């Protein structure tokens, strides 16, 4: 293989495809990092909320709802679900001494249940909604399916949108303030417990949105929640808990590491590498690349 061939057929597509995967990972990690940064809750059922989003999209599409409408409808439907989960499961144990561990355990139990319920409702077989935007485009000999191109753009738009809300609006300032200093924020009039529930629901809604967007590429099945979760946790830790930019940088970086590493070593070892990175960060830089949003 000539060097040009290698560049065109191997290296460049690898980078571009890694980017698409990176966007997918960032989408899943986004809600996770916001919930973690804000509430200090490790949501072990985040993957299952992602699955719920995908299944909801599948079911609603079957009922005739168009894809574009789903992009709005599913996250909106997820919000009350997230609110209810926060109220019923997180809040009762939120005040306990071992909040980290108890919330982790409770959401772990929730994940088990959701996975099984999805199987009961939708069956065990893999399903896949049709690709909303078919076809592929070629640039400089790199082929990229249009939907992936769309995903990269929409992913970027979502990240920017979320970042705008969090970093540029009064609402975002309220959320960040409540994360940093619950009491002080409340004394300035921030309705803290509503903000907490809202943030959890927002994270859940983002997971659902990721489900809608990724279902056509990664297909839908009851155990799909476990798919991205380890990678997403890694992204959250490496990027810095609660940091949106951290999640973006870490998500894109780690998927590139994974993509490029798989060129030189057996792909199976890419998992240990990614994981090793997470361990290394936890040990040597536990605040991650960008520090954290707050410490509620």
């Amino acid at each position: 293989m000539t060097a040009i061939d290698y560049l065109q057929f191997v290296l460049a597509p690898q980078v571009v495809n890694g980017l698409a995967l990176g966007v997918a990972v960032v989408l899943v990690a986004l809600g996770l990092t916001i919930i973690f940064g804000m509430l200090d809750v490790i949501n072990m059922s985040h993957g299952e909320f992602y699955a719920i989003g995908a299944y909801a999209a599948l079911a609603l599409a079957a009922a005739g709802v168009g894809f574009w409408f789903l992009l709005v409808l599913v996250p909106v439907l997820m919000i009350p679900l997230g609110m209810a989960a926060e109220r019923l499961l997180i809040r009762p144990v939120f005040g306990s001494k071992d909040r980290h561990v108890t919330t982790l355990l409770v959401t772990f139990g929730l994940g088990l249940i959701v996975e099984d319920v999805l199987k009961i409702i939708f069956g065990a077989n893999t399903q896949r909604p049709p690709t909303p935007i078919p076809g592929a485009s070629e640039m400089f000999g790199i082929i990229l399916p249009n939907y992936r191109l769309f995903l990269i753009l929409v992913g970027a738009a979502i990240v920017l949108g979320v970042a705008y809300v969090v970093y540029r609006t009064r609402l975002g300032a309220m959320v960040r303030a409540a994360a940093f200093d619950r009491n002080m924020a409340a004394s300035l009039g921030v309705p803290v417990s509503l903000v907490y529930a809202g943030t959890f629901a927002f994270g859940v809604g983002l997971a659902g949105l990721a489900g809608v967007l990724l279902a056509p590429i990664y297909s839908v099945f009851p155990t799909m929640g476990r798919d991205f979760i380890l990678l997403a946790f890694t992204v959250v830790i490496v990027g810095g808990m609660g940091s949106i930019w951290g999640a973006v940088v870490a998500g894109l970086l780690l998927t590139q590491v994974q993509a490029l590493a798989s060129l030189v070593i057996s792909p199976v070892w890419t998992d240990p590498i990614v994981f090793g990175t997470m361990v290394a960060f936890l040990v040597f830089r536990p605040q991650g690349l960008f520090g954290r949003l707050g410490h509620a």
Partner: protein
Amino acid sequence: MLQISALHSHYGLSHVIQGIDIEAAPGEVIGIFGRNGVGKTTLLKTIAGWVKPSQGAIRLGGEALDGLTPDRICHAGVGFVPEDRRIFPGLTVEENLSLGLLQVKGRSSRDEKRVVEGIYDRFHRLGERRHQLGTTLSGGEQQMLAMARVMVGKPRLVLIDEPSEGLAPMIVAEIFAIVRELREQGAIILLVEQNIHEALSVADRFHVVERGQIVFSGEAENAGDRERLLKLIAV
């Protein structure tokens, strides 16, 4: 009108506030003095709702505040400038200020803008640094920001805890000028301060707290009361 009667509160197991009564009218500045650890800060925290009172009543203009959450207390017209200023680290000066606006509901964004611009006019240094992170300001500027953050909400009662702590004398004077402005707006001010001399220059009346109880109350202008005060907290 602020009425605090027979207030008790606990911090963990320790019985910090052991029956305190305070009354104040609009435009009054009340100094709260006493040595460290006697419960002055806890008193303010109890009024602000950070610590739940275990007994007693807090009423502001006839409205009961005791037992409410801090955000409800804020909306009832209480502003709190706590010790250490508590500027949100990840927020810009402007964002810190904008949170103060939450206290007044239903203000148009144009009004809000005017209020904020008014603050920048009054505190040029905040205006210059409006897009910087609040925590990058100097101690004095942070104290100004913390007070401005409360000012924009037009509170009826302002709780201020140790505003001059760690600040240079010139800035302390500025801080107390702000306290006077707040008073002129008609707010009731409860001022906890170690810098007795400065505090007495703005206060109308004062209370001395010891082990969670008021042991002496006096007028700031009354020389005898002042002498008694100095004796009580003298080294």
